[in-house]
């Protein structure tokens, strides 16, 4: 079953006080996330990640298109009962304690009184805030607020969890804990949709990722495939400070650094390249197939975006 689906979802803000100028935050976005998936939403600052999440939460109204969560319209109350949301840099009521805050959210989510108090205590323990349960939130640090935010997002046992940069502001231990938490949610069969800049987290956690840049979806891929697939290229490294003339004819990317030289060629050209090295009597040090990492995928998608006009012509 499809957990999250966006259909031509788009948002253009009007900025300025008098003469409103349009500012495109999200170009028509088509995306589907299966139930049980952990989905990473990647993109540089200002790419439109938060905008997408706000649209999905019904906090801003779309300029066009629609979205469905668990097959239902996102504005329906039934849907809202089944989702949890952690906004970026969350902030809560200053004068409530962590416990009271969770209590309030539990009430709003329609949880039964009996269920509430047990779950709240367990949840505070789980996000490492047991000692701070009776402290007013204005005395919380940034990371502690992030933890409270996580707690409220998953407190009512939602089926789909949306997290906007869940790792930001956390210490290394905290990040580790959040990773574990997401893993755990995955084990429980929940759908997790989270945005992040931290690619290693995405690589470690996600089933699939999407890359968005300048409001435009640049690519969606299965992490396993992206990182294991041979990119159809090989890398040769040899001793020597010069690149033989023949390599440019092969369309190779060449680099030299001191005593070593390096070239990346398509694997069909592998034999021809070796032949050139042999002819020049250069000593081959290594020959390895190139494995694409998520980072490369990300950079490729984002950079291709920087010069789309040039490429097209």
């Amino acid at each position, binding site marked *: 079953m499809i957990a999250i689906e966006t259909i031509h979802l788009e948002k253009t803000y009007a900025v300025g006080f008098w003469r409103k100028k349009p500012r495109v935050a999200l170009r028509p976005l088509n995306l589907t996330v299966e139930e049980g998936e952990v989905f990473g939403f990647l993109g540089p600052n200002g790419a439109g990640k938060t905008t997408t999440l706000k649209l999905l*939460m019904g906090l*801003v109204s779309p300029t066009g298109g629609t979205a469905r969560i668990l097959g239902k319209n996102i504005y329906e109350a039934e849907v809202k009962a089944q*989702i949890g*949301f952690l906004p970026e840099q969350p*902030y809560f009521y200053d004068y*409530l304690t962590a416990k009271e805050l969770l209590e309030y959210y539990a*009430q*709003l989510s329609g949880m039964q009184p009996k269920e509430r108090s047990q779950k709240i205590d367990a949840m505070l323990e789980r996000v490492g805030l047991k000692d701070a349960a009776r402290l007013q939130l204005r005395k919380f640090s940034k990371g502690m607020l992030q933890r409270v935010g996580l707690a409220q997002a998953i407190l009512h046992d939602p089926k789909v969890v949306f997290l906007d940069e869940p790792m930001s502001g956390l210490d290394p231990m905290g990040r580790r804990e959040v990773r574990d938490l997401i893993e755990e949610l995955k084990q429980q069969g929940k759908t997790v949709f989270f945005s992040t800049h931290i690619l290693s987290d995405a690589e470690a956690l996600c089933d699939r990722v999407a890359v968005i840049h300048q409001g435009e979806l640049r690519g969606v891929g299965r992490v396993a495939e992206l990182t294991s697939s041979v990119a159809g290229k090989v890398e040769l490294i040899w001793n020597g400070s010069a690149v033989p003339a023949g390599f440019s004819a092969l369309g190779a990317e060449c680099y030299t650094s001191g005593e070593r030289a390096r070239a990346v060629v398509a694997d069909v050209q592998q034999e021809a390249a070796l032949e050139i090295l042999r002819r020049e009597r250069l000593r081959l040090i290594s020959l390895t197939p190139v494995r694409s990492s998520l980072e490369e995928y990300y950079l490729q998608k984002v950079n291709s975006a920087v010069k789309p006009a040039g490429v097209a012509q």
Partner: protein
Amino acid sequence: MSRVVYIAANTFREAVRDRVLYNLIAFAVLLSGAAILVGQISIDIERLVVVNLGLTAVSLFGVVIAIFIGIGLVSKEMEKRTLYTVLSRPVRRWEFIVGKFFGLAGTLLVNTFFMAVGVFAALLYVSHKFQSSDAWILVALFFIVLQLLILCSLALLFSSFSSPLLSAVFAFSLFVIGSFAEDLRLFARMTRGLTHGLAATAAYLVPNFSALNVIGQVAHEQPISWHLIACNTAYALAYSTMAICGAVLIFERRNLK
């Protein structure tokens, strides 16, 4: 519906913790100081002075508090983004607005109650006993509460579309203008043509605080007609409903920052 109650309760708790009720201390000091002073220097008119001063203070303290927390209600939640997590729950936007209104109304009611106790204590201090005409003071207090309800619905309305500071300015100006609402309506009746249409519309849209201020009458122990009480109550309810509906209509469409 229960969500409205939860939101109201939370609003009340936040407001109380935000030291809103500390104003009661200032109020108590002011009033007891005045009572002692008046008790010493003015003969015959102690009661008059205490009632006038006490009720005026109740009204002004209430107005300031209604505006300041009323404004914070929506725009502060929007600015600080506490709303995000609330609205991503099964909470409808109108429930949020209505809940906020009742939370604030409750805060104001409690606040006014304590101040009223202060007024009666001061009254007892200067005149040593209560008399039956003191009951009209309750009516004046009731009218003050109605005034505050209108004001807090307006604060809610303004803060659903403008910044906290602007909302405070709007709400306070309407309080001042509304205190002259009767004059405005008289004035509107004298104009002609297009001006008449505009003036009359404005005069009837401005909240009518003039009829809600009976402090002077009460201080002189004049009775207040039941007709006025009924009309004022109905009016305050109608006007607050109107402002809240406006707030709901705006807020339904509002994009959150």
